């Protein structure tokens, strides 16, 4: 019998304590970030989709078209092609397309790149309703940056 009353008492008390906690938290300031009015800065290592790195001297892409990234990619979403230009010994980057629909942002490509020619971008606002928007021509993007 005493257990019966003790349970009612402790039960009611636990409910009151719970309500006290939520009431207290209600008066505290909000913790959410009001996206899209406020945005957060992405950390240094944030992995967005990859981007080509510009060579500061020539202004061209650093890429030497070795194809390591293409081979390292688990999902085969990178297509690299080089042009042979007259007067130059090495191949010049002619095409660099990232199929972002199958990319899993694992970073194998960046890791495999010996010449440091690709990096992660910090972009995350990439929502779209069209699949074509995710076939990214990175060379084109590099040129537009200029």
């Amino acid at each position: 019998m005493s257990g019966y009353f003790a349970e009612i008492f402790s039960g009611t008390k636990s409910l009151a304590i719970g309500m006290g906690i939520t009431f207290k938290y209600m008066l505290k300031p909000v913790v959410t970030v009001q996206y899209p009015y406020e945005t957060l800065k992405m950390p240094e290592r944030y992995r967005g989709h990859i981007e080509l790195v510009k060579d500061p001297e020539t202004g061209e892409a650093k890429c030497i078209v070795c194809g390591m990234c293409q081979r390292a990619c688990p999902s085969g979403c990178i297509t690299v092609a080089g042009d042979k230009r007259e007067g130059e010994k090495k191949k010049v980057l002619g095409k660099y397309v990232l199929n972002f629909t199958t990319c899993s942002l694992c970073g194998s490509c960046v890791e495999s790149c010996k010449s440091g020619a690709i990096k992660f971008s910090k972009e995350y606002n990439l929502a779209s309703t069209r699949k074509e928007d995710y076939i990214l021509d990175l060379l084109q993007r590099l040129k537009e940056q200029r």
Partner: protein
Amino acid sequence: MNPPSEPIRLLAFLIGLIIFAALNAAYLVWLERKVAGHVQRRIGPKEVGPFGLLQPLVDGIKLMTKQILVPDHIDPILFRIAPPLLLIPAVMSFVTIPFSETLVARDINLGLLMIFAFASINVLGILLGGWGSNNKYAVIAAARGVSQNVAYEIPMLITVITMVMITHTLNLNEIVRQQAGGIFNWYIFRWSANPLMLVSFLIFFTCSMAETNRAPFDLGEAESELVAGYHTEYSGMGFGLFFMGEYANIVIGCSLATLLFLGGWQCPFGLWPGVHWFLIKLYLLIFTVILIRWTFPRTTIYGLLNLSWKILIPFALFNLILTGAMLKIWPLIFP
């Protein structure tokens, strides 16, 4: 200027009450979302209008313009009469609620009884809605809703009988009048009538939450178990009516608690009684109801019935006997 004739006055009140019920449904949703937001340390609605105040309006428009999907294999009559059956009794109950001494649509002597008569109809809306939908989740929810309502009407009515024994009247305005003259004349603190008045209030408040299917007793629409319970198959305004009915019931439940225990439109310190005091108390209670919803997990059906049969009913009965005894003994000691 002569006071308006009775039919016009009644019509004005009816329109006013329907607007009151509708506005309450709309803005209680807003309040609910705001309180939920801040309890969870978010903002809640904020885009439409200042502080999101126009959100209910937009929601209402959305509900009204939405296509009303009626699934196959339903019972066409029951499916359609269920939502009004839930809403109309709730709105009708407002008729006898005294917002202030004069602001009452019909000051009838059997006011309290009438509210309970209407309150027991709304369970029919839940049952028919669940049954008519021909959906397994809805049927389970309807069965739960009915057993819950039946179980909770008993302690609630016993508590109300206790109150009627003390007040000697079923007229709500009269009950409030008896509580005039400050906070210690409210029935919740009237120790002389019954030392366990606070317990009575808690029983009544718990039961009214269970009656209105509010969390933590929202077994009828337990969304993590039964998807949306008895209104799973309703869309558009069919769902909207269920929604309005639910909030109207909350207002009725909290109004009754205010009138019976918290002195209705009486002022806590005996000055300026009026409609504002009633509304302040009413919304404080509603706020408590909302806070409870956003704090506790849901009970189960047997937990609910255990609470009713093992705790609330024994306590209510004990209170009833104690009150009866007090009524007889008190005059003997202090003649």
